[in-house]
């Protein structure tokens, strides 16, 4: 009798656990989006919110999360907490390749826009001069992590010759000031802030590491895309309008950037110089992300091309652009 | 010779300025080499008296004078055997006996040798490396006595040391105690509520009144040793003392 009860108990426990894990609350009215904290690459999202581009499309958009870095945002996708998100293409690739989240990329948000920053009084002139030192990235498999490793490979050095640490961008500048790290690589406006705050100087902007590299993208949960394609399309259209607005009205976007980053104008102006806002995504570039992530053993992808075809779905974007 | 002069002890009471008298102006004299028992009803203050002699507590008034010198606080002239043995549970028999010798700084080889002598004398061979929890009550008390005696105090104070033992063990230990004591010149002051035990062991019996304790009577015991519990004089004395105690209630 005691045995039967314990068996029933175990089964009950497992079923409860399973149900709890499976269920995730999806709000059927609003679109839940997420973006990265103080990431000026995602200005289009902020512009769309401030200028009402979403509401003009008839969408009710809820900011369901602001994240410290890409991997955190992808975890939220995995938990079913987001419908769409602005995130680095590298963490998105890793999450999808590792079958953690099911998202597709609908458009690019920006290209370039990161920089490797070192301590202001560091004598280093090249990456090679930083051998043996600590460098911080916002997380493994982020675009910045990717760029750093690419730069290391380009300089014909190895990762083992550096001490790569993970620190979230808001804490990077303090770590640089305290000399805990010799340098960091992060998205704007953090490099700009380090410069204007007189704590660091830019060693290489990301466009020198890899010109025109895609950075942040607008991604959508596949379930959301499948069940509410019209709303997804409207989201993409709002994104396109916002991106055009940024390029056409460079002065008007500044207060929006100031509001969402909480930083000063000098920093923002310097940051904006390093970022390109464009919504057309280069598939070949994404193939390179897949290739290198596989090479560094962060993901295992058999057929890179097939993966990219599934992962990057620019159909809605192209439809919008044709009109 | 041990002299108590006007020994008084009062504890502070619950209310302000309130005092609870425990010992009231005790004065008496004990000769060296004697076995003295102190009997009295429970809670009369016998233990307090012993603790004051041992230096664990101080008197409110009065003095304790040993061989012409007043003593206060803990001294090496007094040894105390506790009712609950108070053996250190983390020490073996051998280590327990050596505790005091360690504290006075005796060298390791010497103190171990001394301890082993006592182990022999006290019939504890084979139990040197045993821990207290592995020993019977009677053995534990023997270790406790050895531990105190090895320090060679002038006066051995014993606080109802055999109270928690069964009859047979108690009788054995009483005889054992006499054997051990006979070869030494110390004075023993033995507190007990067991009148039979007092008559069996002592040269002198002090009977205390209930709290606050005063000396009710002093009985010299001249009976030859070894004492015979069936002896008429033994029992007369016992009855007298019991009567005094009974009348006190």
């Amino acid at each position, binding site marked *: 009798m005691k045995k039967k009860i314990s068996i029933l108990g*175990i089964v009950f426990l497992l079923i409860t656990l*399973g149900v709890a894990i499976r269920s995730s609350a999806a709000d059927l009215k609003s679109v839940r989006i997420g973006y990265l904290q103080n990431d000026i690459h995602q200005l289009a999202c902020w512009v769309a919110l401030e200028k009402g581009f979403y509401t003009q499309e008839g969408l009710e958009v809820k900011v369901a999360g602001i994240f410290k870095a890409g991997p955190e945002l992808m975890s939220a996708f995995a938990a079913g907490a987001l419908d769409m998100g602005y995130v680095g293409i590298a*963490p998105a690739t890793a999450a999808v390749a590792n079958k*953690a989240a099911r998202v597709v990329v609908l458009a690019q948000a920006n290209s370039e826009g990161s920089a490797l920053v070192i301590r202001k009084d560091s004598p280093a002139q090249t990456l090679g001069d930083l051998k043996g030192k600590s460098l911080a990235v916002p997380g493994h498999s982020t675009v910045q992590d990717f760029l750093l490793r690419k730069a290391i490979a380009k300089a014909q050095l190895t990762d083992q010759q550096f001490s790569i640490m993970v620190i979230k961008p808001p804490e990077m500048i303090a770590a640089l000031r305290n000399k805990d790290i010799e340098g960091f690589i992060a998205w704007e406006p953090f490099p700009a802030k380090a410069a204007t705050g007189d704590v660091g100087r830019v060693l290489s902007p990301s466009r020198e590491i890899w010109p025109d590299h895609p950075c942040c993208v607008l991604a959508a949960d596949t379930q959301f895309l499948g069940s509410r394609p019209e709303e997804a399309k409207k989201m993409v259209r709002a994104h396109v309008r916002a991106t055009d607005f940024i390029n056409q009205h460079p002065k008007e976007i500044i207060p929006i950037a100031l509001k969402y980053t909480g930083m000063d104008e000098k920093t923002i102006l310097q940051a904006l110089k390093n970022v390109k806002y464009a919504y057309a995504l280069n598939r070949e570039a994404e193939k390179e992300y897949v290739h290198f992530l596989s090479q560094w053993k962060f993901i295992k992808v058999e057929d890179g091309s097939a993966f990219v075809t599934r992962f990057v779905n620019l159909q809605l974007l192209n439809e919008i652009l044709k009109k | 010779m041990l002299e108590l002069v006007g020994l008084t002890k009062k504890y502070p009471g619950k209310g302000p300025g309130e005092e609870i008298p425990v010992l009231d102006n005790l004065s008496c004299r004990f000769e060296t080499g004697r076995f003295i028992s102190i009997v009295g009803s429970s809670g009369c203050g016998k233990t307090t008296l012993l603790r004051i002699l041992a230096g664990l507590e101080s008197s409110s008034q009065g003095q304790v004078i040993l061989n012409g010198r007043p003593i206060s606080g803990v001294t090496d002239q007094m040894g105390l055997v506790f009712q609950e043995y108070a053996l*250190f549970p*983390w020490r073996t028999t051998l280590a327990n006996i050596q505790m005091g010798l360690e504290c006075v700084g005796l060298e390791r080889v010497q103190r171990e040798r001394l301890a082993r002598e006592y182990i022999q004398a006290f019939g504890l061979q084979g139990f040197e490396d045993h821990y207290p929890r592995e020993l019977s009550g009677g053995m534990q008390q023997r270790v406790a006595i050895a531990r105190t005696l090895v320090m060679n105090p002038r006066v051995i104070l014993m606080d109802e040391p055999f109270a928690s033992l069964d009859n047979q063990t108690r009788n054995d230990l009483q005889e054992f105690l006499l054997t051990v004591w006979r070869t030494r010149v110390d004075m023993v002051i033995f507190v007990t509520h067991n009148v039979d035990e007092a008559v069996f062991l002592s040269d002198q019996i002090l009977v205390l009144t209930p709290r606050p304790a005063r000396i009710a009577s002093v009985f010299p015991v001249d009976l030859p040793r070894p004492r015979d519990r069936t002896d008429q004089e033994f029992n007369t004395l016992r009855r007298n003392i019991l009567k005094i105690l009974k009348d006190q209630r």
Partner: protein
Amino acid sequence: MTRDRILPPLFFLLIWQALSALEWIPSYKLPSPLQIVGGLKELIVVGLPPGHPLHLHLLFSLYRVGMGFALAALVAVPLGLSLGWWRRWRRIVSPLLEVIRPIPPLAWIPIAILWFGIGIQSAAFIIFLGAFFPILLNTVSGVLSINPTLIEAARTLQAKERDIFLKVLWPGAIPSIFVGLRIGMGIGWMTLVAAEFTGVREGYGLGYMIMTARDIQRADEIVAGMLIIGLIGMLIDWVIRIIERRIVRWR
């Protein structure tokens, strides 16, 4: 008897594996037992980040916990003995301790980084805080629980204060101290993962490994890492208990 200990977990694992295989539990949320084993294999063979094998992560984490824990014990035991012995000292120090104690070690992370920078010192500090209080409190209680008669017996045997400390308080409190050590080590090991989130300079550490697994969204490696942490924690506790049994033979 051993049948009772093996069958229920085995049964549990089988049901779990079945539910996962049926996709009833989605694999990216909770990997199946087999996937976890696969993840464990990869952690050992390939390492995460790749090139950083599991055993090195383990060594570094043990080192950090060891440092924090050793420091906590070295400070807490003497302090606890003295607090247990001197009532006045206890009255003075207690309020301060009682205010600090409820603060979770993890809340100290920002301060730790400010004081010690990023690296083993801040991680060891967090672990120190986690282990310190259980050891301290159990040491104090160990002293307070010593039968006062034993202390009096020592005094009648001519023990000075130094003798009482070394020959009575210390051995008398050891059983309680061991309880504190076990609890302290348990908490220290638990705070390890979060403490390593403050940043790991050397590129090794179980917390760092799990964080990386989270970054690249490998749930199987996350759970495998958690499993290792649990197993090692259990092993450490077991070792402490063995040492305790050797030292405290008198119980």
